[in-house]
């Protein structure tokens, strides 16, 4: 496993037979990033999609499947909150893919995104609402 790993320094091409791809150019021109970074970006996109699907699964369970003796509004609030969060994530995932891909082509640093925090807070709020719904609903 030694040797060829993506370094943190941006783009880096290991294949000496391929001069046009992967090497960062100092002239500020754009070039395709190292294929490993592109694949990592693709996997990140897929991980966001799976996150959204897990939230949809929760919405299906609350809205359609599990017989809960909550009040109607409590159930709808939790289910719709999960759905909204899932839709926000599915809208964000392709945009983030594009943004990261564009910045990597330029060799620019990648900014942090707010969505992990938004997702965490959203899921925590839903968990709180479920607790309230179970014990006081």
């Amino acid at each position, binding site marked *: 496993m030694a040797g060829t790993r993506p370094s943190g320094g941006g783009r880096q091409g290991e294949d000496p037979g391929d001069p046009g791809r992967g090497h960062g150019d100092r002239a500020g021109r754009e070039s395709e990033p190292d*294929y490993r970074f592109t*694949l990592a970006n693709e996997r990140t996109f*897929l991980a966001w999609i*799976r996150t959204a699907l*897990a939230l*949809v699964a929760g919405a299906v369970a609350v809205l359609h499947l599990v017989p809960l003796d909550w009040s109607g509004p409590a159930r709808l609030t939790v*289910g719709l909150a999960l*759905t909204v969060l899932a839709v926000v994530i*599915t809208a964000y995932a392709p945009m983030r893919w594009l943004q990261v891909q564009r910045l990597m082509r330029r060799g620019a640093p990648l900014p942090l995104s707010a969505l992990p925090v938004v997702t965490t807070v959203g899921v925590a709020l839903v968990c709180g609402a479920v607790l309230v719904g179970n014990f006081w609903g």
Partner: protein
Amino acid sequence: MSGRDPGLQPERTLLSWQRTVIVLVAVALLYVRDPFQDGGEPGPGALVRVAVALVPIGAAAAAMVHVRRRWRATGHGAHDDATGQAPAPLARGWVRVLVGAATAVFAVAVAVSALTG
């Protein structure tokens, strides 16, 4: 170095696609399950559910067929014809759009069908 990535990045990406497809199908089946579970005759609502579930299942099937086909065409992720390196990204852009859109449409349909009945 005959093109095999020592970090198995293409393989990991292929497995990531497979996980995503499996989750898509699983959530769709979860949604369809409800009307049949108490043994009664499925009403017209069940047909609507099956129709809605076909959106994520169709997207999952298209994505899997596309990714497998591309996997084979690139020598199991070893080399893309255009670049000579591993295929990156593994799937074409329209597959990402399709899977994302199918997830969003399905999420909205789950909420709407809960609101309307």
